[in-house]
């Protein structure tokens, strides 16, 4: 919170995106109480035979989680889907899928990828986020 425009951007998930048999991945909660615009993207460099397939979600929560976000561990359990879409990418090339929303009115947000039966495991990539507010 400040009297000037406030933005944050970073990598919140870096490494193996989906192991074989893992149902889904989700980021840690991202504190966004003072933010109006949030975005998260999943980047993967697909190899031949790999497929990114399923749904991506942007979720919000009003759980308190932590009185002082940034200090200590946050436990957020109640998530509500605010935006989602299906993804299906199989060309061997670097790909990126993302969700954005404005008018973000919750305290926390997270990004989630839920692969379906067509998805392959062992994908490696990153989840980045950007948020803007005051």
């Amino acid at each position: 919170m400040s009297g000037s425009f406030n933005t944050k951007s970073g990598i919140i998930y870096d490494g193996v995106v989906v192991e074989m048999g893992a149902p889904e991945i989700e980021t840690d909660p991202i504190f966004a109480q003072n933010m109006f615009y949030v975005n998260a993207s999943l980047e993967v460099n697909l190899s031949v035979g790999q497929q990114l397939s399923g749904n991506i979600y942007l979720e919000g929560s009003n759980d308190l989680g932590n009185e002082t976000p940034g200090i200590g561990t946050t436990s957020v359990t109640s998530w509500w889907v605010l935006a989602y879409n299906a993804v299906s990418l199989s060309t061997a090339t670097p790909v990126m899928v993302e969700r954005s929303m404005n008018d973000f009115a919750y305290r926390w947000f997270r990004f989630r990828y839920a692969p379906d039966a067509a998805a392959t495991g062992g994908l490696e990539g990153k989840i980045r986020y950007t948020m803007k507010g005051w």
Partner: protein
Amino acid sequence: MSDSMNTRNFIALDGVNPQTTVNSAAIYSQQMLYASAQITGGTSTPNGTLKIYGSNENGINDPGLGTPDITYWAELGSLSATAIGTGVAITDVSYKWLKLTWTNSSSTAGTMDVRMTIKGW
């Protein structure tokens, strides 16, 4: 009101019985633009409707000192809830006061908590 952003996160309905109709206290929101309400906990499986209402009545001259007296409310947002975690959000809040109303349909016995976040200046 200030020149920096002002946000609040608080419990609007704390351990209420979701098998009844429940109203939150009036929430002073004159300097707020965004609001959300989410069922974040409790021992019940809630099943009902959570609504956000707004009012422009004066209520009280000094919000925070005493209890506002408000009669007329306009519906701003509605959620049909069947589980903990569901939420409703409104933007462009232009009223002086907000409140929540929970109306039961077929909740199981137990308690329900609803947390709100409001954002503005």
